[in-house]
């Protein structure tokens, strides 16, 4: 919760003004019953119409002040709360994008998503409500207690005695409530997960006629969510009755004590009657506080989840740059080992040097560590042992910007988003239209792009569902080469291309990007055989390294792969 206050600090001036206006409005409203009582008790009996009318006008005047004050204050509250949640969501989303792969895995995407949406929304609601309702109740409470203390100390103390019990109750319910609402939000995560999976896999589900199965799977999380919400709600709803009951017991106590006081001549019945009226005000204030408190609990749970992400320590650290080792190596793997889960090495004792402008092919069976090799080079993960160097400097000595500006990457899990083709290639970088078209030409994509209606302005749908797999791959390759990267990484990125297009792509790449170091990860020998060196991986270990021709002789596994693909691949 203190984190939320830190966020609100920025708006403290506006909030203070808002609270002040709200206080004025509320006080003007609270004065109305007093005027009313005054009219009834003192003015009417004077039988002067003018006087009655002028008091009526006074009431209207105070009503207007109350109305204007409330409108202005509520609008200011709306401003502060939207500005606040805007800033909070902005920071949260930004942080989410910087989370490392390991951290994203830990939080899971559906959970991150519901933190950005429903959790932020819960906090927003609370901040808005506390500003709108948070003034009246304390004024009534403090004012009421003040006046009753003034009227009769002993009776007031009897009532005040119930307050600590109320606070203890509220505190202990709150302690129970926060984890319950965290549980609710966790169930929301699971529900989001199922919906997300099903919208993505709708074809498979329909093909296998698994609708019923999926409905059951959803029903399970839906039921669970309902159960948790119900449980949390039931626990929280004890607050209001307990609070009211305690207050009313206080009233009963006051009446009982008053009987003795009056009997001893220390108080009068009239005082007791007046006392009761203020007591009603106080208990109304307490009820309104209890409603705020329930929302607070929900908000605290959501805030916990939001700040768990925002305050997650950045595991991307930067080390000092050392004296550069100047040789013609572009990047070096020096005895690198790595494991995702810390159990089995996914990459073991890998050593490798690639010179500037050279091309490296990486080949190996499914799960042999090809993509892991790449993820380490991109520093999605840090190595467990050994060292990676680029241009003679340790990988960890580069900032994020330096690192990413060196690479052009075409990843296996391709990311196409709903925007134009041009924008999907450009990807928010400063690249001229000319360069975009050039990149598309090299990627063998220009022909099909220009055949679309609108050409480069053709709108792609999310995940590129309105173009074919081969077209997607070529757009992604164009994206990777558009900025002329130092190191170009193609991870299995031409698997859907036909033989002819793939060959044309290789040719164009070697011609147009001769200065770039190119890493090609592939399953087809034909995609890597022209590389200067080929790395053959199996179970995370190097089992061959060299040129195609040499590997055919030295590396039986490589020869086996190559033989299996004789006769080649035909079309996409």
């Amino acid at each position, binding site marked *: 919760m203190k984190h939320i206050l830190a966020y609100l600090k920025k708006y403290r001036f506006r909030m203070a003004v808002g609270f002040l206006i709200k206080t004025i409005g509320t006080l003007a409203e609270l004065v109305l019953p007093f005027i009313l009582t005054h009219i009834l008790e003192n003015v009417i009996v004077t039988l002067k119409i003018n006087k009655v009318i002028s008091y009526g006008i006074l009431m209207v005047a105070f009503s207007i002040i109350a109305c204007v004050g409330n409108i202005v204050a509520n609008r200011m509250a709306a401003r502060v709360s939207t500005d606040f949640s805007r800033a909070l969501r902005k920071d949260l989303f930004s942080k989410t994008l910087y989370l490392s792969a390991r951290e994203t895995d830990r939080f899971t995407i559906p959970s991150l998503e519901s933190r950005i949406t429903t959790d932020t929304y819960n906090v927003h609601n609370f901040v808005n409500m506390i500003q709108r309702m948070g003034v009246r109740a304390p004024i009534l409470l403090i004012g009421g207690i003040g006046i009753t203390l003034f009227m009769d100390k002993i009776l007031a103390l009897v009532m005040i005695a119930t307050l600590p019990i109320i606070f203890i109750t509220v505190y202990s319910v709150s302690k129970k409530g926060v984890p319950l609402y965290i549980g609710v939000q966790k169930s929301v995560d699971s529900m989001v997960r199922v919906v997300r999976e099903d919208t993505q896999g709708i074809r498979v589900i329909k093909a296998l006629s698994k609708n019923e199965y999926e409905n059951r799977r959803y029903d399970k999380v839906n039921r669970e969510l309902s159960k948790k919400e119900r449980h949390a709600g039931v626990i929280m709803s004890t607050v209001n009755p307990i609070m009211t009951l305690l207050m009313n017991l206080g009233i009963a106590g006051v009446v*009982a004590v008053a009987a003795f006081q009056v009997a001893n001549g220390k108080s009068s019945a009239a005082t007791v009657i007046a006392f009761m009226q203020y007591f009603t005000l106080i208990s109304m204030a307490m009820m309104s506080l209890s409603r705020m408190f329930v929302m607070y609990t929900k908000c605290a749970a959501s805030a916990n989840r939001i700040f768990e992400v925002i305050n997650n320590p950045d595991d991307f650290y930067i080390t000092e740059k050392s004296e550069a080792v100047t040789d013609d190596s572009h990047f070096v793997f020096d005895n690198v080992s790595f494991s995702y889960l810390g159990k089995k090495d996914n990459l073991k004792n890998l050593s490798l040097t690639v010179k500037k402008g050279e091309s490296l092919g990486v080949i190996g069976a499914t799960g042999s560590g090809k993509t892991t090799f790449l993820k380490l080079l991109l520093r999605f993960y840090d190595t467990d042992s050994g060292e990676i160097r680029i241009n003679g400097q340790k990988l960890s000595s580069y900032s994020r910007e330096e690192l990413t500006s060196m690479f052009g990457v075409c990843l296996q899990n391709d990311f196409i988003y709903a925007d134009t083709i041009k924008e999907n290639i450009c990807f*928010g970088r400063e690249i001229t239209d000319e360069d975009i078209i050039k990149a598309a030409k090299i990627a063998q994509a220009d022909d*099909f792009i220009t055949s679309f209606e609108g050409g480069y302005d053709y709108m792609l749908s999310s995940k590129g569902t309105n173009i074919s797999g081969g077209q997607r791959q070529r757009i992604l390759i164009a994206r990777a080469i558009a900025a002329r990267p130092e190191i170009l990484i193609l991870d299995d990125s031409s698997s859907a291309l036909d033989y002819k297009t793939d060959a044309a792509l290789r040719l164009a790449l070697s011609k147009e990007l001769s200065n770039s170091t190119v890493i090609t990860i592939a399953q087809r020998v034909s995609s890597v055989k022209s590389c200067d060196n080929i790395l053959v991986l199996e179970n995370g270990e190097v089992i061959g390294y060299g040129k195609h021709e040499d590997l055919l002789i030295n590396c039986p596994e490589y020869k086996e792969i190559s033989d299996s693909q004789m006769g080649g691949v035909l079309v996409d």
Partner: protein
Amino acid sequence: MTDNKNKKKRSAERRGIAIRLGGYVIRQWTLFIPALIFTLLSNQLSLLGPRYSGAAIDAIEAAGGVNFPEVWKNVIIMIICYALSALLSYLLAVVMIHLSQRIIYRMRKELFEKLNTLPVGYFDKNATGDIISHLSYDVDTINSTLSHDLVQVMTSIYTVIGSLIFMWQISKPMILIFVFTVPVSILFTKFRSTKVRPLFRLRSKRYGELNGYAEEMLSGARSIQAYGRQEVICGRFNKRNDAAMDACYNADYNAALLYPTINLINNISISLVAVFGGILYMYSQSGTVAAGSIFFISLGGVAQFVQYSRKFAGPINEFSNILHEFQSAISAAERVFRVLDEEPEPEDDPNPVEFNVVKGNIDFENITFGYVPEKTIIKNVTINVKSGQTIAIVGPTGAGKTTVINLLMRFYDPQSGEIRMDSLPALKIKRSDLRKAYTMVLQDTWLFHGTIYENIVYGREDATPEQVYEAAKSAKIHNFIESLPDGYDTVITDDGVNISKGQRQLITIARAMLSDAPMLILDEATSNVDSRTELQIQDAMNCLMKNRTCFVIAHRLSTIQNADTILVVRDGAVTEQGNHDELIKLGGFYSTLYNSQFK
């Protein structure tokens, strides 16, 4: 004119939404009626409390000193009243939570089950995050209104009517004040609502868009990082965030006017009551108004009338306050109902033909199809496939290969022409029966959050563990699974650090191997699998294809070469059709492609 008509239509729609939402509540009448009873009882009891405290005070004030026994008696009754009232209000809250949760549960369930009946096109058109937003944000918004405000409205109606009756008894002329001010409140509320409604609708829409964008970008987080595009993407996210927050502020800003203004109108009416009450009292005192006339009023009458009019005004204030929340609930409900009213996949034929023992003959007769009617993808295609044959579909990307599969599975139906399965028109067969006849492996592997075992057995729920292991062994994934610390119980995660894309595909192949469907669709089924593994699973694949009618989209020559029929799809037409030798002889596109690999 039309504008007016539209407006009318809109407001009718609005009313429809409110009624429909009410229907959800009414359906839970077994909880709703107890809730109403608890509300009334608990209110009644809490009103009784003051009466006994009054009696107690009277006893304190009693002539001849404090009447202690009377005080005690009243204090005890008071405590009992309050305790009962507290108990009832707790029960009420519990009932309300159950009520609203049942409604919400049901709404989410209906929504989800509806989604499952929608055509696949819906999911291509709508962002995943937006769909999720219906089930989270929209339903939540409805929930908070239902659970908080429903009972309040109910109690309010009770109070309003009660106070009105009392006021009527005290002074009829003074009620005239409300005859003016209440309609003013209603008109003002109506006037404001028409202004505020579209703002709330926009707010829901913007939230949906924001969630859609967040979902899309989170799915691509790794690529965004690889390109260091975080700031740019954040910038774009913020634009949508701004749009959503602006819409939110706008709605709140405009809605903020309502409650205080209605409050003002109410306060003015109370002031008027005091003033006119005062004046009437004075005339009554001076004798201008005779006792017994309806204008006659006593001082006590004025005081009581004021009290009741305050009671009367309170709920009206509450109404306008609730209306604010109600607006957002209506907008949310509108979005929910729009999904519920989406056109589902067309109904199955009411008299479906029996389709049990499938041989696997398939005929395309003059099929023409386009995803949008204006843009034909396939024109006049005729294909005849015999049981057990393998059909390879070859052609440049985007030429309509996947479309053939969409038609086979009836994800879409052709605009003209007829598809027949075992000589039965496909349109006459129940979709679920038809789809059961197929098993398929797609290029985009789809696994869900669950254990590997659950993901494999997904294709056939009644499979025994031995069959599952056997399928995994044939797909050459068994050893890998066994090497994982949790084996078959390993839970598959989103980004799947522990399982590579190729391994994921092998799991889907194992899934397909479990199925005993007579027809098989392979859409780039091994595109992510390395060729050595592919060779190893070739036997199993052959076995999978044996005795089945197969449709294969592939680029591996060996698969294509051995197909019984090769279809060359180009520019929306089947340009070549025949086996390998025939097509080579033909010297068309296929032979060019085939020969190009030897260059």
